[in-house]
């Protein structure tokens, strides 16, 4: 793949030789100085992504793409008037950016004043300029810039991505299965500055995420899935993923399919499913903006920070210095320094994220974080550490749900949600997997789910939570491998057309 490296190099060099993080910061500082000189108050943010993705369908590569994107986000504020905009530009196009700033500034006069709008705040400033380009995490304790880039991911040959699916196909070559999935890897960078300070802050990180699905053609097209997420290529272990798929394949082909009656069941959620539940619950619970608007599941007159909301087995934290958390950024894209941030401690609500200035201004509350770059960790418990131990632990009939498909809020105010299980729903009883089930529909509430936790596994794992909307933004939840929840409401299955 020498030619690929060359071609890739050419573009990356033609764009990137000019845009090291250092040069981006210098450029932001130049625009900032230009704005200051013009008497313009405002902020400039820069985002850049390099993404490689290989997608597999019907046991062949269906898509192999690379994307380069660079964008500048500008916000200008004069008193209580504000205007915002974004543009694509290259690092040497300072004049283009200046022109864009001036054109936005012309719009500013047409913007009506918003009475509750507060002045712009200075972004956080580091005490030392300490950007380090390194393969490991070398953020200085008093520094705010961060570079955590694995060069192996930055200069990835897409052959490496293709190989995973080839390897999987080889493993299952004697079975009548089809392999599909996606493997994405890349780099995200951002930098911010505003006219109340002199120095820009930056973050630069690499990540990969992969998911692989097996469709069992001889078995009603049943599906199984594995996934992985990491920040460095050496964390990726294709054999481990294939082995896990093989194990699930064995269970699914050696147990009978069974239908269960709707009702309440004890459920063991695999990390994928529990991370999804946590993420969605977080939208309705942990975002200060939705709390203020009353759009979440907490009502201001009933629920306050300091109240016990959930089971005392549940603790969730966001901490940029916690090495269990994969993509920890010291500073948000809003320029706020991110502190150690306990969200739920033994079921008690500790903090809410306040990240959006416009909303915080409306309610006159202070910004305290940036939820857009947060990384949550659900603390582990004392429950089973491995799949086999988990199975053995179930005496009474228990459902195993690895994944929840298409979760959505049916009634946000009550924290009610629905979604269906997918990728291998099992019935476990007397320490053994007795049957695999149709996909089951859950209709329950986050209040119930997070209050009825029986145990959390003692093993911690990472689940990808980045959506691929917009520019690359690595995100994951660190989460126990399994979580057992009692009395989950199952309302039906896909047996009808399943």
């Amino acid at each position, binding site marked *: 793949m020498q030619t690929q490296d060359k071609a890739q190099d050419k573009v990356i060099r033609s764009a990137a030789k000019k845009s090291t993080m250092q040069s981006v910061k210098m450029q932001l500082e130049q625009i900032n100085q230009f704005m200051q000189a013009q008497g313009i108050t405002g902020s400039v943010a820069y985002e850049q992504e390099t*993404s490689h993705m290989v997608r597999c369908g019907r046991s062949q590569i*269906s898509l*192999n793409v690379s994307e380069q994107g660079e964008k500048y986000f500008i916000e200008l504020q004069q008193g209580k008037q504000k205007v915002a*905009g974004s543009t694509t530009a290259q690092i040497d196009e300072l004049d283009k950016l200046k022109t864009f700033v001036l054109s936005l500034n012309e719009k500013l006069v047409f913007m009506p004043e918003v009475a509750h709008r507060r002045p712009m705040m200075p972004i956080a400033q580091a005490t030392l300029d300490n950007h380090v380009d390194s393969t490991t995490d070398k953020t200085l304790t008093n520094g705010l810039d961060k570079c955590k880039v694995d060069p192996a991911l930055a200069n990835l040959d897409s052959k490496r991505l293709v190989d995973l699916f080839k390897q999987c196909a080889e493993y299952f070559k004697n079975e009548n299965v089809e392999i599909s999935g996606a493997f994405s890897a890349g780099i995200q960078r951002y930098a911010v500055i505003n006219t109340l300070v002199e120095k820009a802050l930056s973050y630069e990180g690499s990540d990969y995420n992969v998911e692989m699905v097996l469709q069992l053609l001889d078995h009603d097209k049943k599906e199984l899935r594995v996934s992985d997420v990491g920040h460095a290529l050496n964390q990726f272990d294709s054999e481990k993923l294939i082995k896990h798929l093989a194990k699930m394949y064995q269970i699914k082909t050696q147990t009978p399919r069974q239908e269960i009656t709707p009702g309440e069941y004890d459920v063991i959620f695999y990390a994928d499913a529990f991370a999804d539940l946590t993420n969605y619950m977080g939208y309705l619970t942990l975002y200060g903006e939705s709390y203020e608007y009353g759009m979440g599941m907490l009502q201001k007159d009933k629920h306050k920070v300091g109240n016990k909301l959930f089971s005392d087995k549940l603790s969730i934290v966001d901490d940029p210095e916690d090495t269990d958390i994969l993509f920890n950024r010291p500073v948000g894209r809003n320029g706020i320094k991110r502190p150690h941030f306990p969200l739920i401690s033994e079921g008690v609500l500790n903090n809410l994220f306040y990240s959006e200035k416009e909303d915080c201004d409306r309610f006159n509350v202070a910004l305290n974080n940036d939820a857009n770059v947060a990384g949550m960790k659900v603390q582990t418990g004392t429950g089973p550490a491995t799949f086999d131990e988990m199975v053995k632990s179930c005496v009474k009939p228990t459902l195993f749900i690895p994944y929840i498909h298409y979760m959505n809020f049916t009634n946000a105010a009550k924290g009610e949600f629905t979604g269906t299980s997918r990728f291998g729903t099992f019935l476990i009883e007397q320490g053994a997997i007795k049957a695999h089930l149709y996909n089951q529909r859950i209709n329950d509430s986050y209040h119930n789910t997070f209050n009825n936790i029986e145990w959390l596994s003692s093993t911690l794992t990472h689940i990808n939570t980045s959506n691929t909307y917009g520019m690359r933004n690595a995100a994951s939840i660190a989460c126990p491998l399994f979580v057992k929840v009692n009395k989950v409401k199952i309302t039906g299955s896909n047996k009808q057309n399943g």
Partner: protein
Amino acid sequence: MLDKAKKLITYLKTKGADYADIRIHEVDEEERISTMNGDIEDYQLNSKQGYGIRVLVNGAWGFSSSEIMSFDAMIATGEIAIEKAQSASDFIKQSINLAEKETLIDSYHSPCEIDPFSVSTADKIARLQQLDKQLQHEKFEYSGLYCHFYKRHILYVDSDGSEIKRQLIEIDAGYFAYATDKEGHKQRRTFNMPQNANGTTGWENIINDQQFDHTLRIQTELLALLDAPVCEKEICDVILLPEMMALQTHETIGHALELDRILGYELSYAGGSHVELEDFGQLQFGSEKLTARADGTVQNSPGSIGFDDDGVKARNVTLIEKGRLQDAITSRQMIMEANDKAGKVIFTASGATSRSQNYSNLPIERMNNINVDAGQDGSLQDIIAATKNGLLMESPRSWSIGSNRENFHFATEIAWKIKDGKITNMVRNATYSGDSLPFWRSLDMVGNQSTWELQPVFHCGKGQPNQIMRLAHGVPACRFSNVQVGK
């Protein structure tokens, strides 16, 4: 730019591409204005420029995109696409073949009377504030509206000799209002400005006096909703109004009939489909009252773009005729693959629905206008009058669909109870659920043209990397019998 594009395509052919195309977004602008409680909450001007290059080498796709507009960068980006295709071709079972298409030198312009980008910022803000004011009420905590204006000039050139220029304008606009009900929970009414299928897409829609009717209706409905009883659990007939019919059509006809999904290309993310290749021409998908189509030829719609990103001219494809499944949402690539897999010709031509969100994305099967034909069962009043025990439902509030689109659970913003042919009262927190095929087979009344409306959708997500697509559903009011509600 055309010369550069043509030179690039020639170059890629000499470098081993069996097929190549480039899509250049020469202009890609977006102006977003939103209000809340009388304030201009957000004003944004976003602009981007870039291109995506797609090549076929050794039977596999390669794709690469860039925002550096120089010819050198285009060459380098094209070379990356070729190398991507080469490494992809290392693991394919079946070479990609593209169906025949017409070579076109053509153009398309969205029908537009007043280009929203030609209207002054001051005028736009003044109009939005006027509508915002009209919507406000002392009982509402939040109300407002949003207008997103889009303008794209896209140049498409491919190695088959096609050169297509598109100038697209779209407006995504709507209202919202939130208030607290008697239980202390938020209720909302929203309204996406529908599109006149035979009209135009410009600023003229926003200054139209009809907007005042909508703000008043939203206001009245939300106020009544606050004290309305909760929807009870029962099995009854449901009548879906166009916003709800659009969601129903979108999730259980549109996504279920994307051919790449049927073949299994979306399994690891969005899911599969309960539809099999053998079902085409055979499967009774719905009752005889159901005729649905993928109609890219609707005059005015965000789903009408003239030509898809394979360079195929928009068509009107009948998907389901009198309940029987006939065709799918297709591209040049997928119809060849599906026919090959089935061992017979199921699909005769691409449905011109291969589309990408942006220059940085590879096109995939996307809905254009997935419409349901108006029927013979009279006006909405006629349908209500013919209903003994039913629920009239409107405006999606939440949706969750099985991974093969085989079942669904939807919540609506508002509903009205019908008893003995009359609306008796409004209900809140209404939901309904069902299995897709039995549900469509229970379709027993289809409203006439007076009930048919084109509902735009600006946020349909699919694919990896995820692509958000603009499309629409032209749908009548419809009645379905014996549906589970309130569960």
